[in-house]
């Protein structure tokens, strides 16, 4: 049975480095890649009525953007290298969704880039990679 690696992307530069690293690992180990773009979202925010009214539309737009600008080109590029790959877009808390996806897709490892935030920034805004390391059910490779 081939191993499955989960790769987290968001179109940023660190995510690009994580993608390169994960591709190389997958090639070397003959693993399958699941590329996930998680859009940060919480069901417990406070919105204006107008935001609520347009929410469904915005969600479709967010998904289309994530797919069109980041996920689809990346998946195509990985496929072109002869690797088995699948792309998913989800909404939610990034670290939790990734942990959930690892279980759902049977991934044995997660690859994620890190932004290299300063201590203060990480404390204020939270670090996705840092949180993921804490909650993930499988080993996490944080690519600098």
């Amino acid at each position, binding site marked *: 049975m081939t191993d499955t690696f989960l790769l987290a992307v968001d179109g940023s530069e660190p995510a690009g480095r994580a993608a390169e690293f994960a591709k190389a690992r997958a090639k070397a180990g003959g693993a399958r890649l699941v590329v996930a773009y998680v859009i940060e979202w919480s069901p417990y925010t406070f919105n*204006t009525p107008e935001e609520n009214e347009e*929410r469904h539309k915005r969600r*479709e737009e967010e998904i289309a953007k994530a797919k069109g600008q980041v996920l689809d080109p990346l998946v195509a590029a990985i496929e072109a290298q002869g690797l088995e790959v699948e792309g998913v877009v989800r909404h*939610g808390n990034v*670290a*939790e*969704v990734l942990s959930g996806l690892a279980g759902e897709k049977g991934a044995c490892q997660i690859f994620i880039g890190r932004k290299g935030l300063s201590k203060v920034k990480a404390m204020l805004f939270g670090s996705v990679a840092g949180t993921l390391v804490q909650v993930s059910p499988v080993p996490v490779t944080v690519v600098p």
Partner: protein
Amino acid sequence: MKKLFAALTLALFWTPAALAQETQERGIDTIINEAVAPISNFIVGVVFYSVPVFGVDFPLIVMWLVIAAAIATIYFNFIAFRAFKHAMELIRGDYADPKDAGEVSHFQALATALSGTVGLGNIAGVAIAVSIGGPGATFWMILAGLMGMSLKFAECTLGVKYRNEYPDGTVSGGPMYYLSKGLAEKNLAGLGKVLAVFFAVCCIAGSLGGGNMFQANQSFQQIVNITGGETGFMADKGWLFGLIVAGIVGAVIIGGIKSIARVTEKVVPFMAVVYCTAAVIIILANITEVPAAFGAIIGGAFSPEGVAGGAIGALIQGFKRAAFSNEAGVGSASIAHSAVRTKEPITEGLVALHEPFIDTVVICTMTALVIVITGSYSNEAGMSGVELTSSAFESVFPWFPYILALAVVLFAFSTMISWSYYGVKCWTYLFGEGQKTELIFKLIFCIFVVIGSSMSLGPVVDFSDSAIFAMAVANIVGLYFLFPVVKRELESYWSRLQEGQIKRYRTTWLIHTD
């Protein structure tokens, strides 16, 4: 035609000169006040037509609301108590399909509706009720809140069931849609249309009254309170305060500056927590007074002393303020709840049960208890409205009026944003969708902020009340016809829930760790 034009021109040129002269004598506030008061008095007279009951004037409209709430409570077999826990689970997201992540959650729909409901009614309205109706008004207010839960449940279920979903993915719902579509299903299309239009007209007036002028007026009062009272700088600057608030409201609803709205939406829940915490501290600090306060509330509910109209007088005040605060039966919140993503309209109705509960049974009761415990309601200065609430809190925390001023302005602001949305929805229902039609209403809305800040309390409260209660006339007639629809939905959902057919998801994404 020419004559009319000439008259208009004359009026235009004549007004500024005359206004300037009058301004020097009486101030802009008084002029606006005197111009609007007769109109508001007329509307109030119609809506609050009263009949004598045991020698007291009982406004028919209050009876109308109370009877509807009582019937809903019995017809849905005390759904508010049966489904209280299940509603909590729905709000928490236990039954939310993970595939719908990113859509409007039950929590978000409730929070948005609440930010329109929790406003000055909870702070100032309660004070008005207690100052006129005595402590006993509190009892009736809580009772009205508990019964209002069932009414709110029905109207929010219908709001989702009969909403419009447009091809571009946006949704529009509320009484105007369920009245027209729902009654059409019952072969009463004509009546439905009439009720829907009547509702929309009243909702526009309500959005300008209770959703706007009352909020502006009371937040201005509190600003006056903390800037030196009647002799302070702000005392006769209602128009100035109005212009500033109108500017900010305009920036959000016309200018589309979402950041202001977003900040408010985040700060408002925080202020609500601060407000309730302060109230709890005051109650705890005076714990020895609590039994006496409850005695005054329950005793005052049935045999009050010194209240005009006795028990009935207290009851009228309590019911009136509860209805004005939680808007059950009025139909407004149904517009906000309609945006939720759910396959079962009934779930949003169940979630909406908590709205009158949080609004009236929790927050309004806090305010009432503080006023009763501190004994502030029996003041000799004749204080009422937000001034009374402020002085009650001040008697324990001398610095509280400043916090309250901030809370009041923020509550008022978020309520205005919500009501401007309700108003726009009804406006476009009547005059058709379109940027231009929306803009006209939004401009009118901003003008009313200035008018509201300039008028004295009496005419503003009366007008707010009448506009909001008039919405209930059309809404409740429709609800009586549509109650069976809600009951059918409820029974189907409830039996499937008991049989375990409604899937409960144990999802990780719902637990918020950061």
